[in-house]
């Protein structure tokens, strides 16, 4: 697979340019900084897709900020068959009890993963727990979730880049693009 990946050629359409993303992320940073003025914020990145987003967002936030990382297994992944239940592959490294926590997601579509994370992190008794996502794909929503900060609402297309992957590729693109259907249909 890896030898056949054409990072740019596999993209049918650029949905969000690097400039558009950077502008919007900076706007989110200003908004979040104002909302959390005088407080300390803990950003929780949901690996792996949200890494570029959080890296840029945290540098746009001007209030004191801690970061932490979480990773949960995805349905259909390598660990699915063993238990049939979602697994926390990487848990928080510090307590969030009483803290203002902002979950950073790359994309929300069905809301299933985020719904799970909200319940899981809620059990750790944060002071507040809010959601920030770069991309929102509401057409795919199964679980309604209140999203506090949204970068872009996007159409119902399969997108990659800026952290989002297909078969672990395309994460390093600096833009968000629509993957050409023949890429995943031929990969079968």
């Amino acid at each position, binding site marked *: 697979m890896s030898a056949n990946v054409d990072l740019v050629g596999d993209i049918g359409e650029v949905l969000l340019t690097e400039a558009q993303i950077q502008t919007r992320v900076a706007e989110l940073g200003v908004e979040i900084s104002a909302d959390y003025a005088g407080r300390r914020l803990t950003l929780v990145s949901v690996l792996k897709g949200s890494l570029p987003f959080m890296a840029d967002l945290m540098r746009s936030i001007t209030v004191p900020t801690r970061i932490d990382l979480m990773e949960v297994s995805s349905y*259909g992944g390598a660990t699915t068959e063993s238990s049939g239940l979602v697994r926390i592959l990487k848990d928080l490294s510090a307590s969030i009890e009483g803290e203002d926590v902002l979950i950073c997601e790359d994309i929300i579509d069905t809301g299933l993963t985020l719904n799970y994370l*909200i319940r899981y992190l809620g059990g750790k008794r944060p002071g507040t727990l809010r959601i920030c996502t770069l991309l929102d794909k509401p057409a795919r929503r199964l679980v309604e979730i209140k999203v506090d900060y949204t970068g872009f609402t996007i159409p119902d297309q399969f997108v990659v880049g800026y952290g989002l992957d297909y078969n672990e590729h395309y994460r390093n693109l600096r833009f968000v693009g629509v993957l050409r259907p023949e890429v995943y249909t031929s990969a079968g």
Partner: protein
Amino acid sequence: MTLADETVVEVAASPAALGDPARPTFAHASEAEMARILDFYAVRWAYEPDVFPILWSVDGEVVESFSPDFYLPDLDVYLEMTTLRQRLVRKKNRKLRRLRELYPAINIKLFYARDFRALMLKYGKLALVESLSGSSGQVVPERPAEAEPSTNLVAPPAAAPAPPAEAPPRLADLPGPRPPSRRRPRTAEARRLP
């Protein structure tokens, strides 16, 4: 990191997670797949727990009803799946419109073939779509077809129990034979956003 380092967190109990012997026989492979996905993410569900009458005869008898595939109690949402080709879902769309007219308070999502395909793509299971979709995915003989509405049928008749807008009646609340009782999985703690 080894598997031993991983933390399995059961934030909710699903029938499958509990080893519920009453796990239903699904009418379609796509429904079984959806149940596995919901189980994976610890979303509780019940399979076809409610039947909503949507058409009555002039005598007040229910002649057509709609039973959504899943009810997700923690989210108070019904989920209806159809993996038929888009042009073949007209009848289901009509029933869904009727359901929404009669029971505006219920929250129901229709999951089309394209939605299922997108879900499988997201989870890296696109290759299975064909075997889980349409007629290929039927795992039990089709249930008896419901009577097609005809012009001498009206809904709802004055004598028939009219569904209130606030809280739609379920068949269990209506006169006549009671539907199978709803299976209520164990309630789980779920903290909400402050």
